[in-house]
């Protein structure tokens, strides 16, 4: 799998581009990880996204991850300002961002240092560095540049200094904004990508702008390509599997938005919050064109209440948020559960608690989602584990919400929010859509909460239905929706709202085990870690370790059959992106150790001694890290 490791690390550190040097045959690689790093606003992300699409078009698997600066307005040329994108390209399907970076293009040495300090670059990583700073009029900048290049050489990196500014200023007035396309050309050359495809991609990317922008960008692309062909002494090729079906290339948040469109929901109510907002941006752009609507409410409480009002009077609505906003919605979520109003709540998780780490990924809202809102408030909790999943899960969530008249919380996270991975273009079917709002007369004597004795489900009466008039209430109520405080009625309501989860649970398929059905160790995960966990398990299995993994989409309720799976392994451990106490800390013992969220839930439900390993570093867990954890666990 990791053929890149065989790439020779800097034999002669500090090479300058050799004019006229023609690369030998392209080295064939199974996969490579590339980063484009710059100050924000220099178009690194557009460059990387285009590279990803071009590679995908050729038939490579890709996973792109945005690199977001730690600060909102970082000063130019700063370590904290590293902004950009990482593209993992492979010859097969790529399911996660992978380990460290193999090749990086950096627009300045400070932003690059940000990545070096973060430990994101592989030992011996190839660096293409903008060389304009060497000739800068500010001697401090020159010194910093020279010193950094020196340091990088010493660190064993393979540094190529590239005159990006110089080359681009010959073609465009504002070279700062043109460099990214020049770099795209360089990368197309390095990875032997089809230049015609790249030109087409530029036409699509800048489709909204005038033809001149497209021509200029294509000129820069060609120039970058030509420069690399004559000046670089290496070239790679990642074998492709030709694309035979149309693929969709979007990030997770756009996929969620497309899922909202495809689910037939009419209304999305939201309040801006990172990292969920880009879904709403996307929907705001297109939803209205097909008769839907995004309402930006005055806060998350209002957004959730607005969605509940809309659901109550019409089709199921959706509200989208992240951590702090999710906390604010809790009381209204409880109302929707109590009054049995369908509602989809999407929570694109970020680091918490409080304002936490807005742009960073974490899986720390699981317990708040399952058990949040006061009182016994049973709701469905699902988690998406890939980009394609983001699309289909919304459709499923809407259906469940409407069939069971309850709240479905859909968890994504900051990792999936901006990651791109191609998936087969969905084939629309009408049964994705919500049925039209029921306006038929309610039969005489029918009650608004006529709970089915087995499933707990009751038919919902919608305003406009003759004969269905009743006052819905968040107070305890009987079948007629009359406020009732007597113990029997109270328990009847609790019982039926709870039964609905069991009724759903009976329809869930047992999740399949990745790897052998039994063995020494089972890793259990949920959400965005799926790709990394399965890749790590696959690597460990190649080394002969008897490890398998299980990934849960439904966290509440959990499907049948999981108990049996857990019992077929000698040890079970969850891997999660959240906090769990470290056993090595002096005060921590079995009586006080706080387990990570899923481990806690599995332990309590299945009475199995499940361990956990978790990390809350704000970024996706790397497959190599998981491999190490697996080995440690198996040798402990």
């Amino acid at each position, binding site marked *: 799998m990791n053929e890149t490791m065989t790439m020779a690390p800097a034999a002669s550190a500090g090479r300058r581009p050799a004019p006229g040097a023609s690369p030998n045959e392209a080295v064939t690689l199974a996969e490579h990880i590339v980063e484009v790093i710059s100050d924000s606003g220099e178009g690194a992300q557009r460059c990387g996204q285009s590279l990803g699409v071009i590679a995908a078009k050729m038939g490579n698997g890709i996973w792109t991850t945005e690199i977001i600066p730690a600060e909102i307005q970082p000063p130019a040329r700063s370590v904290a300002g590293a902004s950009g994108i990482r593209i993992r390209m492979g010859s097969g399907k790529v399911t996660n961002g992978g380990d460290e970076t193999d090749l990086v293009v950096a627009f300045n040495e400070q932003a690059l240092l940000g990545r070096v300090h973060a430990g994101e670059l592989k030992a011996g990583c190839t660096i293409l560095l903008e060389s304009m700073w060497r000739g800068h009029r500010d001697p401090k900048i020159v010194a910093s540049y020279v010193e950094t290049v020196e340091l990088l050489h010493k660190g064993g990196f393979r540094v190529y200094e590239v005159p990006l500014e110089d080359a681009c200023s010959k073609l465009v007035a504002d070279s700062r904004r043109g460099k990214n396309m020049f770099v795209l050309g360089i990368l197309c050359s390095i990875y032997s990508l089809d230049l015609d495809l790249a030109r087409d991609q530029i036409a699509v990317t800048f489709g909204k702008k005038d033809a001149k922008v497209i021509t200029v960008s294509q000129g820069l692309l060609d120039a970058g390509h030509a420069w690399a062909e004559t000046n670089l002494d290496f070239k790679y090729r990642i074998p492709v599997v030709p694309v035979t079906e149309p693929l969709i290339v979007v990030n997770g948040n756009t996929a969620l938005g*497309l899922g909202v469109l495809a689910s037939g929901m009419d209304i999305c109510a939201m309040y801006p919050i990172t990292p969920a907002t880009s879904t709403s941006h996307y929907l705001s752009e297109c939803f209205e064109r097909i008769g839907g609507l995004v309402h930006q409410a*005055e806060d998350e*409480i209002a957004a959730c209440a607005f969605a509940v009002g809309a659901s109550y009077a019409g089709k199921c609505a959706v509200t989208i948020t992240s951590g702090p906003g999710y906390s604010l919605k809790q009381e209204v979520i409880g*109302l929707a559960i109590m009054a049995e109003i369908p509602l989809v709540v999407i929570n694109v998780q970020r680091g918490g608690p409080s304002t936490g780490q807005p742009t960073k990924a974490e899986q720390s809202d699981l317990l708040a989602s399952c058990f949040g809102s006061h009182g016994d408030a049973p709701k469905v909790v699902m988690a998406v584990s890939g980009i394609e999943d983001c699309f289909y899960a919304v459709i499923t969530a809407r259906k469940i919400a409407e069939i069971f008249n309850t709240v479905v919380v859909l968890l994504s996270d900051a990792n999936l929010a901006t990651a791109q991975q191609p998936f087969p273009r969905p084939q629309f079917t*009408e049964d994705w859509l919500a049925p039209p709002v029921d306006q038929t007369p309610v039969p005489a004597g029918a009650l608004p909460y006529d709970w089915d004795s087995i499933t707990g489900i009751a038919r919902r009466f919608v305003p406009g239905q003759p004969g*269905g008039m009743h*006052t819905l209430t*968040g107070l305890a109520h009987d079948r007629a929706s009359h406020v009732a405080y007597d113990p029997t009625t109270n328990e009847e309501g609790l019982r039926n709202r709870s039964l609905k989860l069991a009724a759903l649970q009976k329809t869930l398929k047992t999740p399949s085990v990745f790897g052998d059905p039994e063995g020494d160790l089972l890793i259990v995960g949920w959400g965005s870690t799926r790709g990394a966990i399965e890749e790590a398990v696959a690597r460990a299995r190649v080394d002969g370790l008897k490890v398998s993994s299980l990934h849960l989409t439904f966290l509440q309720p959990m499907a049948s059959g999981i108990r049996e799976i857990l019992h077929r392994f000698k040890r079970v451990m969850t891997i999660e992106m959240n906090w769990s106490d470290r056993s090595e800390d002096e005060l921590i013992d079995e009586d006080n150790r706080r387990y990570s969220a899923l481990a806690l839930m599995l332990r309590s439900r299945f009475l199995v001694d499940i361990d956990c390993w978790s990390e809350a570093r704000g970024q996706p867990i790397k497959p190599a890290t998981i491999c190490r954890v697996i080995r440690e666990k198996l040798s402990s």
Partner: protein
Amino acid sequence: MTMPVTQCLLKLHEDHHNLEDYQGGVPRWCSGCGDNAILAAVQRLCRDEDLSPERTVFVSGIGCSSRFPHYMKTYGFHGIHGRAFPVAEGIKMARPDLTVFVNTGDGDCCSIGAGHWIHAIRYNMNMTVMLHDNHVYGLTKKQASPTSPIGFKSNTTPRGSYLNALNPLTVTLGVQNVSFVAQAVDWVPEVLYDIISAAYHHRGFSFVRIIQRCPEFLPKMFESWLADPQKTLLLTHANGLTLTPELSRTYKNQLAHDPSNIDRAREIASGEDPIPVGILYRNPEVPCYEDVRHAGQMRTPEHIRVGLEAELDRFTVWPKNAEPAQRAV
């Protein structure tokens, strides 16, 4: 389908509603509670306007006053404390064909729900809002509310409340997009009815503050107003209230006020003694958010499919040479 005239007439007769068609559960408010008068006025209005019970929704928050929907025989949404406005907005946006009323208390609207109140004024969605302002928290048993007069002794302010009362009228009149503001008192039922009716007929966010007696916790609060009609200032105008001769005889303290004059409305609204009663402001020109957002469009599955396919096209990577010819880049 055609229907013979006689049957049409029969149907009309059948469809015509009586007071009982709007009377839900038996009210559980204290006797003498001003909420009873508001309920009576609203039920009368529904009958007079012949509102279809199944197409009418009463939305409330939590409080004594928010029990209101339970006593109607329409659809009702008795939600959570402070959030009646956003719920009502969601209902109206999903179903602009429904008639929406909101009943809210001074704690519900002016304290916990104050943020939503301000924004509800801005949205100016077509709904009739009744603020049952009893100057106290009734349901939770006598705590100070934002509209309690300074010095008011309550369970949380045993030595008297500390702050000046908030004036819901001036606040509402201060918000951009305000389109209808009126004040009524529960103890003059004819005027209460007329004002709620005017509010109902205004297309937009019609805000009626109703001074509501709470004999349980503020038994003497409005005694002097009841005893002395001079302490009530009736606002009259050809486009506002027109008073019956009997009322005019009792309430001699009258002021001609043109409800299109917002500056004057703000001035009058700041007066607390005498209490201004009538229509302070009305502007039928303010756009309603549901109209601006084109709410209530019918969407066929075909409509959604075409829209989705167009969106998917934007993100599709086609196999070589398989790109559909008709696709516009």
